[in-house]
């Protein structure tokens, strides 16, 4: 009887263990959309970053254009970007502080502040807008999310999350994001206008580990309204959470440089 009990207890423990395992898996699978976004934000939003990248713009009926830039970013709303190649574009600089952006061209010798819809123009004619290139917004703060399901993408398990903007002034009122379920990096994204019209498609790949984060080293962007181009951004070097000189994000630095 006791043995039975013991045996019974033993079986009960085994059953309980199995249930616990099932429940744990289920609870991970049942992340709320908000939790998914929080994990993406935690991985993708860094305190500071320094990136050198090569931007290749491919034209349907012209030679490719290759540009190289160096960028600094701090938090979600400060960034500085300077083109270093080719020679004719070297020294063109862009400073983003909150909602405003300044452009400095060596030939003009004075910065110009651009606002509003200008931020949606292509950066140096690429498929990335000035906004795309300079913003690093928090998804949780800006969007309401709905989990559409899971999909395999490039042999990675992804959560498909549908985002709807909380504010009217965001460049993309709806986004559909395929989030890597283990590394919390978006692998694909479709960005839409309020009307539901597809504006951009981004494919993120070559995800590498930097410290305790995962970072995509290749971003392919296609602006649906700019039909004859495609732009690939290849990160050449990425440093995250490093010390950034404070003066980088100032107008004197933009205009003076050093």
């Amino acid at each position, binding site marked *: 009887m006791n043995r039975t009990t013991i045996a019974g207890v033993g079986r009960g423990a085994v059953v309980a263990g199995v249930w616990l395992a099932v429940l744990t898996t289920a609870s991970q699978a049942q992340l709320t959309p908000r939790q998914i976004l929080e994990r993406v934000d935690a991985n993708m939003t860094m305190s500071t970053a320094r990136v050198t990248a090569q931007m290749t713009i491919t034209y349907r009926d012209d030679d490719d254009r290759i540009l190289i830039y160096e960028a600094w970013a701090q938090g979600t709303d400060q960034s500085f970007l300077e083109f270093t190649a080719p020679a004719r574009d070297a020294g063109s600089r862009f400073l983003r502080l909150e909602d405003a952006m300044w452009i400095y061209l060596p030939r003009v010798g004075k910065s110009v502040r651009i*606002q509003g819809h200008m931020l949606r123009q292509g950066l140096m004619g690429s498929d990335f807008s000035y906004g795309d290139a300079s913003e690093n917004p928090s998804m949780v703060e800006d969007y309401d999310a709905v989990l559409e399901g899971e999909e395999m993408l490039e042999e990675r398990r992804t959560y498909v999350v549908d985002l709807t903007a909380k504010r009217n002034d965001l460049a993309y009122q709806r986004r559909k994001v395929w989030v890597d379920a283990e590394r919390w990096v978006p692998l694909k994204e479709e960005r839409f206008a309020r009307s539901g019209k597809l504006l951009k498609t981004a494919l993120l790949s070559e995800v590498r580990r930097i410290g305790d984060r995962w970072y995509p080293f290749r971003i392919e962007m296609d602006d649906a309204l700019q039909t004859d181009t495609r732009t690939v951004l290849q990160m050449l070097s990425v440093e995250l959470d490093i010390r950034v000189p404070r003066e980088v994000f100032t107008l004197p630095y933009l205009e003076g440089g050093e």
Partner: protein
Amino acid sequence: MSRQRRRIPVLRLAWRNTRRNTRRTLLTVIAVTVAVTAITFMFAYITGILGNIVNSYARTESGHVRIRKDGYSERERLMPVYLKVDRVSELLSVIREHPDVEEAVPRIRSSVLVDGAGTNRPGMLLGLDFERENAYLNPASMAVNGTPPRAGFPEVMIGDEFAEKLGIGVGDTITVLGQTAYRSLGGLRLVVTDLASSGMSFLDNSMLVVPLDQAQVLADLPDAATEILVFAHDAALAEPLAVELRAQLESIVTGDLEVLSWLDQGPLMRTMQMMRPMLGVVMGLMLLMAGLIIINTMLMTVMERTQELGMQAALGMRRSDILYLIVSEGLVIGLIGGVVGAILGSGVGIWLEHTGIDFTAAARGIDLPFQGMVYPDWQPAFAVVGLACGVLAAGVAALYPARRAIRMAPAEALRQ
């Protein structure tokens, strides 16, 4: 015994008849005059409006023939400066040698961002050869105050409404950012030397005019332009000229130019051409209305004389003679009214052709190449057509009452 046919001096009789009741005649003559005046003037007026749009479009947009890089038309909205015409000076000298060519001018058109007094706005930058443009876009004629920009200097003339929105004036410096031929970002600092008012709202609201060389610096286009506009001695030569230039330029710049006559550049001008027959229909309706007024008046005039006509028939006047007489009366009245109307219509047309009709206020709201002043375009043919219509309508109008009169038995006519 053969009865000799009496010859009735119908025309003289008709003329005399018109003077019998001057009030009646005057009424009919006035009806014809008003109708013919309206026809003559309206022809000149409508031709003037169509001419205004076509001419404004040719001068500002299309030329008679426009030469651009192949594929530009499809991307026109974006004003892509990377779609450029190279070796412009060589092409220009070849084009100017063509006997049908009055002038050929290079232009650079670029979509830019203009930074004025702390605000910026998108604008349209036009790089022009100021001297050669005098008879065409004619920037000097748009100047409001100041001096036009000089070639070789970073100077700009800016649409007056645009300047107001930017909060700038003559003497201020603006920064202009735009695309370069290599599709990157170029910029220029320019001093505003002049404000422009063209009367064409789409220009005054967004236009910046700079010397060609400055636009070439901004867009990185040495010896290149985004278009060459060709003006023929006569707009009617445009289509064959485009064909000839295409063949000629092919041998210099192989196969990558788009050479289009003004009629082939977008639907607007084709529509305008199609509007001419449509306006013909409108004019036809106007003629019909004028004819009805004349008919109505003639009808009244003849009906009034039923008794008299019955009397003439009873006295043995032949029916054909009566018919002939009444129609002749109609023709005489038509001729008098027609001549007066044609003279009046032509007079008004020619007068307004010189003074113009000011539609500046109305033109501000429309996004068409349309100059505020409309100058009717009077041509002798319009007076002839007006006159012919008046005479014909009066003659035809007299037929019905005349036939009605002669069909009546003399006794019945006398009773009425």
